[in-house]
């Protein structure tokens, strides 16, 4: 698992990491279940109000739901059936609040020292100093939170959380209040620090890109319910349902009918929009059944204007550009398939490519749907044109 | 650090119980401690404001002992004594209060008559009223509107107020003057009101009017004693009276004290003219 420094705290433990299972209807609906192994970072992702913070607070012991269990390293912190509830101050959970929640009347050093109650008086100052150095705040120990910038406050909060030698580190949207440049810096520092952390880390965020960058696993939440669990890339590119697909921001969602499953290594054929699409072989879905399918923008290839299509097998789809937005270095476009506005494919290309191919609203263009990108899901209830 | 005093699992509850216990113990010890030998508190009718103060000073000069004086309306004191107020001696302006307390067993005995009081009409300097003890000027003033406010003590619980009412009724002026009355809580306050200039005058105790502080503020005249029930002022030792109170009670019947009472216009028992 890599070398561990003093942050590990103690000899090799029986490692089962964090396991959480919660169920409640009111006042906040919850139906979440996930686990996080030591040294792993799990991102809890979902729109605002999806219960992510509540779940984090439950793990920390600040909120008590009606049913469920929270266990860390084999120790039960909460078990509604057994009537177990360990209060927050007896748990070893390090929580970095969204607003940092530093003690305003204490210096940075004293803030960190507050979490070091388990050490002897003599050791505390030294340790606090070490931790502040770890988060690159050496020299600022004497400052009060009001005298520190947002990024610096956040680091004090992290140092304080780590000071507790926590069994699980919880980060509640820690980067939402900082500017982009600082955020990039903090991402790198967190990634670097992670290599030395041997505990499960749970990161709550509504920013998918952040999750993609930092986390090993991603748990998708909506209205307190766990929708999907897996690696970030997996969840983003292979969402289990249309709902999950929408939550992770996939725009190209359609319905189709399964025509045929070719013998391996062949494709699964779908009928869509009066044409036949080749997608990755997926015999789970029955022939003749409706399916939903999606394709990430990354798997749409623009046919170059100056080079005619050599009849690539990869599902060519012609259409008319209905939207073309230059967003810095990338241009985001929407293609109306066969000129039908209700069937739109969203894709993006580098701006110079867009320029070279003279992409503009009203122009004709053709894109290829890469078979490997077409991902099948159970059919959705909302009516969509099948074609 | 977390197990500082070795508190129980619910340190908060232990702390609270301990704090409450300390508070209770402190209050108890403190109440008990306050029963040391203290000068007795003497309740005196308000008309004795100046007279009794002088007598207490004479008492101290002679015996070296202190007494604490409280002044108020006789009726108010009687009520407080019934509720257990810690007075050791009570000088009332109306002997009925004393006799009633005696019937209810709150006093040592029926006490002693110490003075007979008189009332006067007083008008502050600059008042359109005259200090006329026959009320003739008052009668005229009521008719021609010279008097808007007239002060007496509250007849409900102040004997001097009751007597004032009796004399006004006797003169047939009560109905006319009733809604222009300003009632003092006791006769001292009535004197305050009567001399302050915010009223045109009032009926107060003779003993108060004779005091230099009050007489400087206006003019006064005695009201005929036959017009009201006599103000038979009786004093009594209460149940918990101590040695000092007993000595003071005796002192009040000695020549020195009687001389002071005479100075303040009181008629002494046995000397009624």
């Amino acid at each position, binding site marked *: 698992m890599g070398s561990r420094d003093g942050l590990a705290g103690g000899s090799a433990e029986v490692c089962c990491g964090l396991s959480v299972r919660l169920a409640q209807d009111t006042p906040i609906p919850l139906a979440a279940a996930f686990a996080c192994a030591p040294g792993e970072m799990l991102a809890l992702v979902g729109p605002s109000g999806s219960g992510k913070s509540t779940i984090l607070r439950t793990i920390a*012991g600040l909120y008590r739901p009606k049913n469920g269990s929270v266990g860390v390293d084999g120790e039960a912190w909460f078990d509604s059936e057994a009537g177990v509830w360990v*209060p*927050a*101050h007896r748990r070893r959970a390090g929580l970095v609040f969204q*607003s940092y929640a530093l003690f305003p009347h204490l210096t940075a050093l004293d803030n960190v020292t*507050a979490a070091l109650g388990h050490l002897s008086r003599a050791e505390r100052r030294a340790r606090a100093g070490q931790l502040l150095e770890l988060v690159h705040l050496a020299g600022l120990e004497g400052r009060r939170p009001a005298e520190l910038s947002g990024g610096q406050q956040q680091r004090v909060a992290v140092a*304080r959380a780590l000071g507790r030698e926590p069994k699980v580190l919880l980060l509640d949207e820690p980067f939402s209040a900082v500017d982009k440049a600082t955020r990039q810096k903090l991402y790198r520092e967190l990634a670097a620090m992670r290599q030395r952390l041997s505990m499960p880390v749970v990161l709550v965020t509504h920013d998918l890109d952040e999750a993609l960058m930092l986390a090993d696993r991603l748990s998708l939440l909506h209205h307190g319910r766990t929708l999907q669990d897996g690696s970030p890339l997996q969840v983003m590119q292979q969402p289990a349902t249309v709902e999950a697909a929408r939550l992770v921001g996939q725009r190209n969602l359609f319905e189709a009918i399964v025509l045929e499953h070719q013998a391996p290594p062949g494709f699964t054929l779908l009928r869509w929009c009066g044409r036949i699409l080749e997608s990755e072989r997926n015999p789970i879905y029955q022939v003749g059944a409706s399916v939903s399918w999606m394709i990430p923008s990354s798997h749409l290839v623009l046919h170059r204007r100056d080079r005619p299509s050599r009849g690539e097998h990869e599902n060519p789809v012609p259409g008319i550009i209905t939207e073309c937005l230059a967003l810095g270095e990338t241009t985001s476009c929407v293609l109306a398939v066969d000129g039908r506005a209700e069937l739109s494919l969203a894709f993006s290309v580098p701006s110079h490519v867009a320029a070279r191919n003279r992409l503009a609203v009203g122009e004709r263009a053709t894109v290829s749907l890469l078979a490997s990108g077409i991902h099948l899901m159970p059919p959705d209830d909302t009516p969509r044109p099948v074609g | *650090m977390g197990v500082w005093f070795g508190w129980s699992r619910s340190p908060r509850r232990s702390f609270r119980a301990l704090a409450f216990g300390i508070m209770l113990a402190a209050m108890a010890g403190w109440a008990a401690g306050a029963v040391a030998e203290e000068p007795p508190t003497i309740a005196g009718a308000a008309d004795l404001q100046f007279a009794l103060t002088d007598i207490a000073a004479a008492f101290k000069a002679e015996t070296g002992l202190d007494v*604490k004086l409280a002044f108020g309306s006789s009726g108010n004191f009687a009520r407080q004594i019934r509720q257990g107020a810690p007075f050791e001696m009570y000088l009332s302006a109306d002997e009925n209060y004393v006799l009633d307390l005696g019937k209810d067993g709150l006093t040592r005995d029926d006490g002693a008559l110490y003075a007979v009081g008189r009332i006067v009409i007083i008008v502050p300097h600059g008042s359109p009223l005259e200090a006329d003890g026959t009320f003739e000027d008052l009668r005229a003033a009521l008719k021609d509107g010279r008097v808007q406010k007239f002060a007496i003590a509250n007849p409900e619980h102040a004997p001097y107020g009751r007597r004032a009412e009796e004399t006004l009724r006797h003169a047939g002026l009560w109905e006319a003057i009733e809604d222009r009355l300003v009632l003092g809580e006791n006769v001292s306050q009535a004197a305050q009101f009567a001399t302050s200039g915010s009223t045109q005058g009032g009926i107060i105790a003779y003993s108060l009017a004779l005091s230099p502080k009050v007489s400087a503020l206006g003019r006064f005249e005695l009201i005929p004693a036959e017009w009201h029930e006599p103000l038979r002022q009786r004093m009594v030792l209460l149940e918990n009276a101590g040695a000092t109170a007993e000595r003071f009670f005796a002192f009040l019947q000695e020549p020195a004290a009687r001389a002071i009472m005479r100075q303040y216009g009181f008629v002494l028992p046995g000397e009624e003219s």
Partner: protein
Amino acid sequence: MDWTALRLSLELGFLTVLLLLPIGIWVGRRLAYQDFRGKGLAEALVALPLVLPPTVLGYYLLVAFGAGSPVGQVWQSLFGRPLVFTFEGLLVASVIFNLPFAIQPMQRGFEAIPREVREAAACCGLAPWQALLRIELPLAWPGILTAMVLSFAHTLGEFGIVLMVGGSIPGETKTIAIAIYDRVQAFDDVAAAQMAALLLALSLATIALTYGLSRRVGRRLG
């Protein structure tokens, strides 16, 4: 100048504040942190002495601890003195009628502490009483101090209830406010003026201190 009365008033003020400190912190904290059924009623009850005429309060206190009442009789048998017309009775009355002056500013002081800061204290491993001593009290202290100063000043100035429950017994319940009243009735304007001026100065100092403190609350948490 009635020094005994002044000493009595100061004693009453200090002891009232001493007793109200733990009560105010406990109740103020509860009201600040918890939402419970009947909280509105609790807050209204706490605020009641603010709007009740002192004589109403005095009347009910007399009914509650007077010589005829159960409380009064128990007290009498325990200590040999009645609860009314004594300093102890005044102290009890004083604590009751100062409840809103003590509890409300303390409640505001505790409310001003962001909930997440308290939660962070728990997550740092601080037990509730440790969090109280090291985090909450230091942050809420302007509110607490305001409460104590206001209660002290209010006690010094209270008249109606003191008169009804305490009578005007020199050295026992004759506070300086009552002494002023008494001196006016005795036509002793000099003494009355002296004591009134003293109380005025004390009240001004109190207000100045309170305003100064409430400005510090903002700065402290800013």
